[in-house]
């Protein structure tokens, strides 16, 4: 008489699932935040510094600082992205203050004449015009543009990062966009 099996049988394979590494901070998944925000942080810092090499240095420093300070994050104070971009802003401003020349010596405005108008597509021409117009903005407007369009923060997160109210952040952002539109039209 065959023995009766009480356990599952006939399972051909064993499913192995990768268990995500849990961060030491219960309220913050650092690796997930890093994966989601790495390029955004770089884009924001690059917009502010206008220096790709400096942006890489600062971005690395931002994530190192965030990694070491992740236990200090409190969800009640705002989203993880707002917290991370607050660190990024401080690091970028510290770098600006240290160098005091970063933006001035950084990437020059794009030379519209360098692009062959006859061969360039309209879209490329428009991108070049926008790039040149961005370079004419002041640092505060450029920071707001970077947070909004390059880092992908909403207005509430921008307000938390910059330290103003949400309506004030919206007003400043609208003002920056107006200046940008004017700069594009004159480009």
């Amino acid at each position, binding site marked *: 008489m065959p023995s009766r099996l009480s356990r599952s049988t006939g399972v051909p394979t064993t499913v192995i699932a990768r268990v995500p590494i849990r961060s030491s901070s219960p309220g913050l998944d650092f690796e997930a935040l890093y994966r989601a925000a790495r390029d955004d942080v770089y884009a924001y810092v690059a917009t502010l510094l206008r220096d790709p090499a400096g942006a890489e240095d600062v971005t*690395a420093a931002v*994530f190192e600082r965030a990694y070491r300070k992740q236990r200090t994050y409190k969800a009640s104070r705002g989203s993880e992205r707002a917290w991370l971009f607050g660190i990024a802003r*401080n690091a970028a401003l*510290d770098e600006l203050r240290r160098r005091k020349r970063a933006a001035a010596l950084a990437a020059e405005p794009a030379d519209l004449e360098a692009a062959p108008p006859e061969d360039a597509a309209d879209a490329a021409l428009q991108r070049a015009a926008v790039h040149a117009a961005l370079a004419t903005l002041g*640092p505060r407007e450029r920071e707001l543009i970077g947070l909004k369009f390059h880092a*992908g923060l909403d207005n509430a997160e921008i307000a938390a990062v910059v330290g103003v109210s949400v309506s004030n952040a919206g007003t400043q952002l609208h003002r920056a966009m107006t200046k940008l539109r004017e700069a594009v039209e004159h480009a």
Partner: protein
Amino acid sequence: MPDPLSPDVERELAALDDALAGRPVAPDLAELGELARLVRDDRAEPSGAFGATLDAEVKRGFSQGDPRRRASGPRWRKGWGTWLTPALGATAAVLLIVIVAVTGSPTGGDEASTSAGGDQSASNAAGQESGAAAPEPGRSPGEGATAAQDDAASFAEPLPPGSVPPAPAPGSPRSDGRVRRAVERSASLTLAVRPRDMDAVSARVQEVTRRLGGFVAASTVDSSAGGGSGTFELRIPTRELDAAMAALARLGQVRERAQRARDITAQAVSARSLVSDARTERESLLEQLGEADTVRETESIRARLRFVSREIERARAGVRRVRNRAAFSTVGVTLVAEHGGGAEEEDGTWTPGDAAGDALRLLEVAAGVALVALALALPLSLLALAAALAMRWMRRRRRDHALEAV
């Protein structure tokens, strides 16, 4: 209070969000939506090498040093962060030490604060009863003046327990050039003893007095269940005074202690002079008696001799009194009953009551230390808080300034 956004501004901001999210934008704001997409597309992207390096750093948990870190954070933070905390700690420690040193330790202060002062003068006990004459026992005006002079010249200062009055400096105003001086010394001692030990300590006081060659001039002992007291007037040989004080002090806890010394050399000299003068007069009278011719003259001289002999006896008694004052010191011992009193040598047992008392004193000391620490920590904390807020404000200002300076 921030101003609310106007409808047009809100509409344009919403159009920006719609364009970024890929949602349709109103036709009149299509140009704005296109601009938003162009700005978004203008964003910088990190190089692949940088992304790979940073990914590896994150996986390692930033365990190794990275030269990129030199761009992280203001430099002053590292400098301040490394020595600010130790500096604050050192400052707090120094202030605490200064406060403790200024306020002083209460240990031993009880005896010092309750020690009574005493007149003291030359205190060389050896041979201090030397050379006393024998005047009449009644005080002469000159003797009274001398005593008053001694009193005026005496001085008082607190004496800690166990100390010995110092000898006067040579050539002091009190000095009359005599090598051997007569000094009258006295002392008083107040001892705290346990109520149940009152009788035993009283007996020990008398035992110490007898052992050192003294005697009890007067005593009153009142012992009861709840307390009691005792007073003793002891006469101790002056050369044993210090030993007696030390032995008596061991019988209880010293609450008050005083010693007094008074130079009575002038009184001793005066007493001796009276004896000498009377003897000289008697010798003269004896010579006159031998040369007397009449009975009447003889009777007169004999009457005078009887008077002079009585004078000599009185003067000798005066000399003996002065000698006694110098040879024996008066020690007043007062016993007071205290539940926490008693010398450890007297009773080595450590009762629960003693433990409770010790615990109470320990708590008092701990509370005092905590109070001092709190008084120290509170202003320091406020200063540190103000400094932190100021530094934070300055840092924010510097960052804003950096943003403006670009």
